[in-house]
């Protein structure tokens, strides 16, 4: 399927490039609806890989690339069942999102995240599956999960560790602070920082460049330099699910859902 228009995302293929646009208001929270449509995209990926060179992930929403996992959905769902069932549901969700993200991560296409404004938690983890990240100067990256008594669960730590120094990973993870695009460029997270509102346009130039190369060679180069940290990804699911069973997590989720402060991602 070359084109798809869904409730949370859409994709379009033209001139050797697939563009996957996120558009689930208010801030591309990743819940069941987006997961299902990401699974549809992954199902369509083999055909797209046969004719495209690059994939661009971007957001159509002003709020930013993505605010991360849909914590309200997670909290509300968990309230309707006992703790064991909630833990089982979270585990199933993580298995599914990992399968999707691992597939995009290892796609033969050259993948580019065009990022603006907030790129937090699961949204940051989605951007991290891409080979290149092009950020506008208003982009902000953050792993706020520790405030909930959790670690990032969509593969963020292993993927960030694959890309940048462990000291920076610890800084982001253990303080929960956010960093801007310039800092992201300095630490090697971001490939290019561009003017406000220009990330998608620059990503299109970059994608067009990748169409000039032999696909087999590009895919081989990518496979060589960007191996999937499979064992750590598996461990991450186990650690996340262990932590999720603690009562502090539900309390953290409740506080987040009810928080109306300026920095809801900080404790």
């Amino acid at each position, binding site marked *: 399927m070359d084109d798809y228009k869904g409730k949370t995302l859409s994709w379009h293929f033209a001139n050797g490039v697939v563009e996957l646009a996120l558009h689930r208001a208010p*801030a591309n929270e990743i819940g069941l609806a987006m997961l299902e449509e990401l699974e549809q995209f992954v199902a369509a990926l083999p055909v797209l890989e046969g004719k495209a060179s690059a994939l661009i992930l971007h957001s159509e929403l002003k*709020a*930013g690339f993505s605010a991360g996992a849909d914590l309200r959905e997670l909290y509300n769902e968990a309230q309707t069942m006992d703790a064991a069932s909630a833990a089982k549901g979270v585990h199933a969700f993580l298995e599914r999102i990992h399968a999707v993200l691992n597939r995009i991560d290892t796609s033969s296409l050259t993948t580019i995240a065009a990022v603006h*404004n*907030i790129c937090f938690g699961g949204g940051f983890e989605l951007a991290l599956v891409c080979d290149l990240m092009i950020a506008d*100067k*208003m982009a*902000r990256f*953050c792993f706020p999960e520790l405030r909930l008594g959790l670690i990032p669960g969509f593969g963020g730590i292993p993927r960030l560790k694959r890309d940048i120094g462990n000291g920076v990973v610890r800084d982001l993870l253990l*303080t*929960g*602070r*956010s*960093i*801007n695009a*310039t*800092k992201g460029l300095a630490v090697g997270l971001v490939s290019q920082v561009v003017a406000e509102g220009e990330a998608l346009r620059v990503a299109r130039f970059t994608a067009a460049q990748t169409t000039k190369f032999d696909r087999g060679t590009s895919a081989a180069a990518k496979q060589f330099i960007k191996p999937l940290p499979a064992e750590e990804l598996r461990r991450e699911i186990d650690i996340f699910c262990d932590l999720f069973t603690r009562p502090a997590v539900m309390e953290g989720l409740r506080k987040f859902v009810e928080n109306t*402060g*300026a*920095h*809801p*991602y*900080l404790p």
Partner: protein
Amino acid sequence: MKTIEQTTDEILNLAATHFHFPRAELIATDDFYKKLGIDSLQALELLTRLENHFGVELPDYEVQGVSDFHTLATRIQARL
């Protein structure tokens, strides 16, 4: 080295420009959340604009709880 007054003035100019607020109505002791009517996303936007403008890093926890322009200026001043 900028003075605290210069830093505060630049913050007020930046806030007025980007949040479309009359500059003359902003003063250092204003609660910017109330005065500008900004939400959590806009607070992050302000943080990013300040970092970009002054070329500093402002960890979120350092500005958490800060709500007036003058205190914000002291946090930035400490990193210039």
